[in-house]
């Protein structure tokens, strides 16, 4: 079966597709299997994802490939139910797709595939790839002289165990990638932990870093929309520890 056959009939979602609000996300998530083992991990990202898509990202479901859009890269592809629920609530995918998730011919897998889902910027799942890809995308925006778009990349605190992230953290700062924002969802699931805190890992390298309550929408929004500081920005969003 080809990718083309699996994509929705119209490559551009209907502008009139109903958009729903934060209160609807739990219902959308429940359309996917409620007892899925990834559900706790998925929920850790829910509020940050909602604030991004509702208040921060300059993206249009009718023009998901617009060159001027902000790029959002979900690196922590593990547990994507909240992501899919937000994409449905914001009109990137049809709600009916949620009921098919993880089936053989669904566009929605346990890890997302950019080739199958409109508006998804990277295929992820294996940890430690999104941030390096985000550095490449940000360098491209600079090379092409596109000053408007920002690149946002969401990672998990345990994902930072992967050394590939640290190659990217150093280089993004040295190259002054002001258009890049990393959001670390910290549910304290890293097995060996980060002494001194995650924020310090970034600030030591020269990032503009801050820590916020990962459930406080206003605080998340403020951190994600703070003026550029001549350096890449890291926002550590702390949520309850992984059960």
């Amino acid at each position, binding site marked *: 079966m080809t990718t083309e056959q699996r994509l929705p009939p119209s490559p551009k979602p209907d502008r009139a597709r109903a958009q729903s609000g934060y209160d609807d996300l739990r219902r959308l998530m429940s359309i996917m299997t409620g007892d899925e083992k990834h559900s706790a991990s998925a929920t850790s990202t829910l509020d940050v994802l909602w604030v991004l898509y509702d208040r921060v990202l300059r993206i249009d479901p009718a023009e998901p490939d617009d060159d001027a859009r902000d790029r959002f890269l979900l690196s922590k592809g593990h547990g994507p139910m909240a992501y899919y629920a937000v994409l449905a609530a914001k009109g990137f995918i049809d709600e009916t797709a949620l009921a098919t998730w993880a089936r053989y011919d669904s566009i929605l897998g346990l890890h997302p595939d950019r*080739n199958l889902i409109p508006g998804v910027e990277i295929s992820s799942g294996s940890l430690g*790839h999104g941030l390096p890809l985000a550095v490449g*995308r940000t360098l*491209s925006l600079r090379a092409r002289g596109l000053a408007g778009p920002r690149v946002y990349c969401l990672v998990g605190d345990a994902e930072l165990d992967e050394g*590939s992230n640290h*190659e990217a953290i150093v280089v993004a700062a040295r190259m002054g990638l002001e258009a890049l924002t990393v959001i670390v969802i910290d549910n304290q699931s890293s097995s060996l932990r980060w002494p001194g805190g995650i924020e310090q890992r970034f600030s030591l390298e020269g990032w503009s870093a801050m820590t916020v309550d990962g459930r406080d929408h206003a605080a998340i929004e403020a951190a994600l929309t703070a003026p550029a500081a001549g350096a890449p920005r890291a926002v550590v969003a702390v949520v309850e520890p992984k059960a």
Partner: protein
Amino acid sequence: MNVNSMRDRFAMVASQLLDEDERVAVVLADISTDRFRATGAPARHPARVINVGIREQLLVNVAAGMALEGMRPIAHTFASFLVERAFEQVKLGFSHQGVGGVLVSAGASYDEAAYGRTHGAPEDVALVGALPGWRIHVPGHADEVEDLLRDAVQSHDPVYIRLSERGNTRPYAAARRGLAMLRAGGAGSPTIIAVGPTADAAIEATAGIDATVLYAATVRPFDAEGLRAAVRGSEIVLIEPYLQGTSAAEVTAALSDRPIRLLSIGVPRAEDRHYGRAARHDAANGLDAAGLRARISAWLGAGISAAAV
């Protein structure tokens, strides 16, 4: 800078491509930065010549991230680090994301033999060939490098170009052509397929033997049609400058409708703990002209006597 060195020529042509095409970016991990400085490209295109330092995972995924933005990245370092160390980045950054790019390696097989096994990568073509859709070029001359690189940058495919310190005295094939006929044998004669830098030795080794000699600078996709059209007998000798048998399945698939005998010659699957020079390794592996001649003659002789029985 020497125009007949594949690696120097690569830096020269890539620098021209940076001048000619705004989609092109060169991503480096310290290796060959001296050569690029010599062309002046980093000063002319500071946003498109990117050195990430000794970080090969980042090297490949930065290139992939640029490809996701519609650019045509060229990522370059030694084969052992580009393909082996960063193999998952090659798999996921390019193949799984569904974007193309150009990976150019230096230090083929045991080119850097004195540095030992850590800098050797005779497995590279087998690894890249395990992924879907990659074009793999094994040029045998700096002129072929220029053709293949220009062609690779124009396409949207994922492309791997494998540079070597060694090569043939002259170019044998232009970009993207399949198998080139170097010598036509008589009816029933064996077919010798020489890949990239092995061609000169293969020609010398088969002097006086009635055989068709074919040259391949592109091994993926493998030119099955060209092979089928050229073959005049049932004996095939495949000579590759990397892991022995890497393209054996391509040859047998191309000729699956007929009985053949196949001799695959290449770098043995061994944990080689020798240093020295590459030519010494060729001799030890039977990949120099004398070694090739001895092995091919013995094998053909065995075939003839087996057929007689």
